[in-house]
């Protein structure tokens, strides 16, 4: 892999940019690998990257049904934060957020991490109490967040209406180190770094079956033939249930559609991320000037990657109320992704009934922010066969044992 640098740009400028090599190779699958990761989204690629970087396992294939980063990695609203209430979540998401800070340097790929700050508005007294509790919890967890009053909110976000008729802004949970990153670049950067370590990224290769003997996986049947492996990692988000079924176990997961949309591009007007959970919407402005908007999920099981129209209406109604100046803004694009929701709205990084098969799923509506931490923890689990401190609480046995990591109550809607 040739390093990207200012000198590389200068060199290529002198020869009409003819010398750029492909960012990653697209080889045919080998007969067998030390580890196979199913799913080349952010989480799968990050898992492969940290398997190589932290544990020296580089004979790895990442298998992808569609194209790299074409699932939820390319469909989210790119928000990064770690202001969670429960200790295990705060540790995992804070690990991810801190890895994002140096990810561009680590990967030699600009992921455009922008720690622009993030506000979660409190619009009911219940929410005020909840966020104050989170601020105090974050203080104990070593996550830097603060509680700010409505005047400070208005200062940070001049376009906001803090005296809304239904839900005036009573304050906000502010994480100054939260922000956004370029979602595609995260997947591309990890893929390039994995390829440089000699890993195989195999796109357009759908897993059709998981072969096992004596409760150990021996390989996967794919549309490009059988591929043997010593370890298997399932990192497929919305389709976790299908792959788990091939491997012979059932998950505490339901797949639902979550939508997002962007407006036409406008001049810079908001340089923080604002989430308004009571009225059900959140918004940030992309580097291109589009307002990036997200809202709630549909309530029913759905694999169609499109959501219900009335949720768009709800989200936009909430945001027009919060930011009156966007009322004339045209929406440019809308899309949906299939998110994997667990009962406690916390992810699963877990061993499975098959000894050498591991699963990373259940990120629900908030997976993008966790990509580096998730990959870090999953790689540790796959390399050692036992979870490290980050993943320990996220095993799926927690549902049997009643040890929930209950963020659904803690985080409200926009998780």
């Amino acid at each position: 892999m040739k390093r990207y640098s200012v000198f590389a740009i200068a060199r290529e400028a002198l020869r009409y940019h003819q010398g750029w090599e492909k960012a990653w190779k697209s080889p045919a699958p080998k007969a067998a690998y030390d580890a196979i990761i199913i799913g080349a989204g952010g989480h799968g690629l990050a898992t492969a990257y940290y398997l190589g970087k932290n544990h020296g396992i580089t004979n790895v294939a990442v298998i992808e049904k569609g194209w790299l980063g074409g699932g939820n990695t390319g469909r989210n609203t790119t928000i990064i934060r770690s202001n969670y209430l429960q200790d295990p979540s705060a540790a995992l998401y804070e690990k991810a957020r801190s890895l994002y800070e140096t990810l561009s340097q680590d990967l030699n790929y600009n992921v455009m991490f922008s720690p622009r700050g993030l506000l979660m508005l409190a619009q009911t007294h219940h929410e005020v109490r909840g966020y104050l509790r989170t601020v105090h919890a974050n203080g104990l967890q070593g996550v830097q967040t603060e509680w700010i009053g409505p005047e400070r909110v208005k200062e940070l976000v001049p376009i906001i209406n803090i005296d809304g008729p239904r839900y005036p802004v009573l304050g906000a949970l502010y994480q100054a180190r939260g922000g956004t990153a370029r979602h595609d670049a995260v997947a591309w950067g990890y893929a390039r770094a994995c390829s440089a370590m000699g890993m195989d990224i195999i796109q357009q290769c759908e897993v059709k079956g998981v072969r096992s003997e004596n409760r150990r996986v021996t390989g996967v049947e794919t549309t490009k033939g059988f591929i043997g492996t010593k370890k298997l990692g399932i990192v497929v988000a919305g389709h976790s249930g299908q792959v788990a079924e091939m491997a012979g176990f059932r998950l505490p997961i339901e797949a639902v559609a979550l939508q997002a949309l962007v407006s036409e591009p406008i001049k810079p007007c908001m340089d923080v991320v604002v989430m308004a959970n009571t009225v059900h919407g959140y918004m940030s402005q992309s580097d291109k000037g589009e307002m990036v908007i997200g809202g709630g999920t549909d309530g029913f099981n759905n694999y169609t990657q499109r959501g219900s129209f009335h949720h768009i209406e709800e989200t936009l109604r909430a945001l027009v109320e919060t930011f009156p100046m966007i009322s004339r803004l045209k929406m440019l694009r809308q899309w949906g992704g299939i998110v994997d929701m667990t009962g406690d709205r916390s992810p699963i990084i877990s061993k499975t009934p098959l000894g050498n098969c591991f699963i990373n799923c259940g990120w629900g509506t908030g997976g993008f922010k966790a990509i580096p931490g998730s990959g870090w923890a999953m790689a540790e689990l796959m390399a050692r066969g036992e979870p490290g401190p980050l993943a320990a609480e996220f095993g799926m046995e927690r549902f049997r044992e009643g040890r929930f990591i209950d963020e659904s109550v803690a985080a409200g809607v926009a998780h």
Partner: protein
Amino acid sequence: MLTLTCPYCGVAAEETELAPGGEAHLKRYGPGSSDDDFESYMFARRNEKGVHFERWRHAYGCGKWFLAARDTATLEVFATYPAQTPEPPPEVIDRIKARRPDWKGYK
């Protein structure tokens, strides 16, 4: 927009009129049951990509719970039927099989 016909009041209800209630025909386990049974009743879900049986409530209509057979990959609705049905009725199964010949069946 998803439209389901309420089997009680006969109204073809739009999605905004309905409240989804998750997987149908769960076998319930309570105190005294094994951990496995209780866990699978509480948390494990079929989460089918394809034919799915589920509970709905006609929340802004007659208010009653009913069941629906629906394809989660295409949003096609095969049938709706009363909630007091322990497993999918044969005529619903037949209708699904007619529409989905390669369906592996219920259970």
